[in-house]
């Protein structure tokens, strides 16, 4: 399915119509696959090892922890004692928003507990992700198109676009907190008296503006790199054929830049779903700006095992989103190209 939607037809101009060989030399298919497999193993090994140490080990240890109860307080000694096996209770407590009841058992989490914020944090996370990634894609595409044109001062624009992204997030967050203060320059400049961090919509938009400002350059640079790979003669040919600017954009630019664009969107989405610093420093998660990552950090301070379960749930949510992306939206860097090699298997 992804193959049909993918830019397979466009592949022809880019590769000059030559059929793609999937190896340097096509000897015998089976032999080639075997020897290529060996090569591939060597080439991929460093990546796999690096990821295994730093990411896989922590994920597995988190999953293990998530099936343990958090330490409970021994009322006699006043000391914490280990919680023992929890089964799935850490997971079900989050999903059904259940908290421990004073007399034992569980009750619906009262407002003020972290447990009561799971679904709202999930909603907030998706809200931020959808809005920021959409804004960043549109703005980033626009910036990339401008930067790809030849005009005096182009390098100035390219340098300027880097600035927001090059400022460390710790500084960015403080800068926006400073700008969005009630007596800050934001309100002063536009002569407004908005309580940016004091109610839901302004607080959410403060985070969105800051995040969009900071990460649009990421999109713009990736899309620009994609644009630069398009041979100029393709445009010339289209112009000669009388294609309008919109037609050229839709029929040439978009399909040819799509692989780079999809990678950019995919990774931005994964990052946005794990958004932490900006809302944490700007609003501390007040007024419905608590994301899943903020909830994880808050829970880490109250109990590791429950936080491990929440991390795993977040992981699964992001997994599902990535799955949808790859399966239905053609964000698969390899599969969309395999049209030519379909028959091989």
């Amino acid at each position, binding site marked *: 399915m992804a193959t049909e939607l993918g830019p397979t037809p466009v592949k022809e101009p880019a590769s000059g119509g030559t059929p793609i060989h999937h190896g340097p030399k096509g000897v015998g298919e089976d032999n080639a696959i075997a020897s290529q497999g060996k090569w591939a193993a060597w080439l991929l090994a460093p990546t796999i090892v690096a990821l295994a140490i730093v990411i896989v080990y922590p994920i597995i240890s988190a*999953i293990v922890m998530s099936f343990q109860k958090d330490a409970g307080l021994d009322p006699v000694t*006043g000391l914490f004692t280990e919680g023992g096996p929890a089964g799935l209770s850490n997971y079900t407590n989050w999903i059904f928003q259940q*908290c*421990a009841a004073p007399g034992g058992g569980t009750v619906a989490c009262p407002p*003020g507990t972290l447990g009561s914020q799971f679904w709202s944090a999930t909603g907030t996370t998706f809200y931020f992700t959808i809005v920021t990634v959409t804004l960043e894609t549109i703005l980033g595409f626009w910036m990339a198109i401008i930067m790809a044109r030849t005009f005096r001062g182009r390098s100035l624009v390219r340098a300027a676009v880097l600035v927001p992204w090059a400022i460390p997030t710790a500084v960015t967050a403080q800068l926006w907190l400073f700008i969005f203060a009630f007596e800050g320059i934001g309100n002063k400049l536009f002569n407004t008296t908005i309580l940016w961090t*004091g109610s839901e919509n302004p607080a959410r938009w403060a985070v969105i503006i800051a995040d969009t400002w900071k990460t649009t350059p990421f999109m713009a640079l990736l899309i620009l790199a994609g644009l630069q790979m398009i041979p100029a003669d393709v445009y010339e040919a289209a112009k000669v054929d009388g294609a309008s600017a919109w037609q050229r954009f839709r029929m040439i630019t978009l399909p040819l830049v799509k692989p780079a664009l999809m990678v950019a969107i995919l990774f931005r989405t994964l990052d946005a779903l794990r958004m932490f610093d900006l809302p944490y420093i700007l609003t501390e998660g*007040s007024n419905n700006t608590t994301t899943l990552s903020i909830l994880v950090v808050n829970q*880490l301070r109250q109990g590791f095992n429950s936080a491990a379960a929440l991390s795993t749930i977040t992981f699964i949510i992001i*997994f599902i989103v990535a799955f949808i992306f790859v399966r239905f939206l053609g964000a698969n860097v390899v599969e969309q190209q395999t049209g030519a090699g379909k028959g091989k298997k």
Partner: protein
Amino acid sequence: MKTPKFLLPVAAAGVLALTLSACGGGGGGTTAGADAEQGLDGRGPITYVQGKDNNNVVRPVIEKWNAAHPNEKVTFKEQTDQADQQHDDLVQNFQAKNANYDVVSVDVVWTAEFAAKGWLQPLKDKMALDTSAMLKPTVDAASYKGTLYAVPKDSDGGMLYYRKDLVPTPPKTWDEMMSMCSIAKENNIGCFAGQYSKYEGLTVNTAEAINSTGGSVLDADGKPNLNTPEAKAGLGNLVTAYANGNIPKEGITFQEEQGRQAFQDGKLLFHRNWPYMYSLATTEGSSKVKDVLGLAALPGIDGPGASTLGGHSVGVSVYSKNKATAVDFLKFITTEETQRFYATQGSLAPVLSALYDDQELVAKLPYLPVLKTSIENAVPRPVTPFYPAVTKAIQENAYAAIKGEKTVDAALSDMQKSIESASAGQ
């Protein structure tokens, strides 16, 4: 052909972990007993861990100690300026049983949690210290279940800053202060503000409001005690003041610095803040209140209100190998000489009661007498091993109540239920 093989390995990792989990592991157990017994007589080099040393007072003290104790030298490990990060850094190292974090500075609200986790050495028997000269609330905040787990190092309390030019005599009670708000209206400025943004400062301000009307967040046994008329009156004071504009609407975005800015710009008649603001408001070039700054204790029902206690204590890690040196170093930090040095060089409020009446010190730090009243009337923030959950419960519900999204009754009852649930364990 289009099977989702693409994402299979991730799922495989999950299955692997599921099988692993059968073997147990993970989690931080408490074998405090054994660790607390070892290293009691140990002497040798130690490390002192503290957050950012704002005024460079720690290094000189350590240098002095090192000169006198060449075989028991102290190394300074400086953490960030952010309390949350200091907390997380300590937790990481305690969990890893790091023997190199010998002496640690803990915020007053972390003592109970670290004690209950078995990470702090009880300061009794061989490790005992004399705390009789110290302000009682600071010692209470450093104790858990009647045992001292850390020794107070510096203190802090909220004070009422006011405009001397507009208010000749400061209000003693909350009602008196509210009646003076007409003066603010005449001058077209805000009346009163503390810190009502949703963060740790809101817990401080809420606890102050509740304590000042005679209520308390937790009772003596550490159980929540919020469904009381006193607590209602306390939180109600804040809610009413915000609703009728005595607390300006931007108050809910205030942390310490925003409030200080507003007061220094002459936009507030009364302001609740920490002592740190005094020297800034009297010296900063942009301050419009340099010469008209007045100071008083926080207002209560019929006299001074109850401030929330701030500051830090210093404890010894149970994993330390050199506890005899460590406890000597604790004593060294709390000598009158060191405390005086902290106060004069670092503007840190001392924990020794006598220093507050010291003429020389008072000449340097004119706010000391007011601060003494404030700290003597101070109530420690809830002393509970579940502090991270308790403070969230207070912030969440107090914020909603102040913004008018919830009634005072509902907010307090939700606070009560949240704290009960957090301390119920599982």
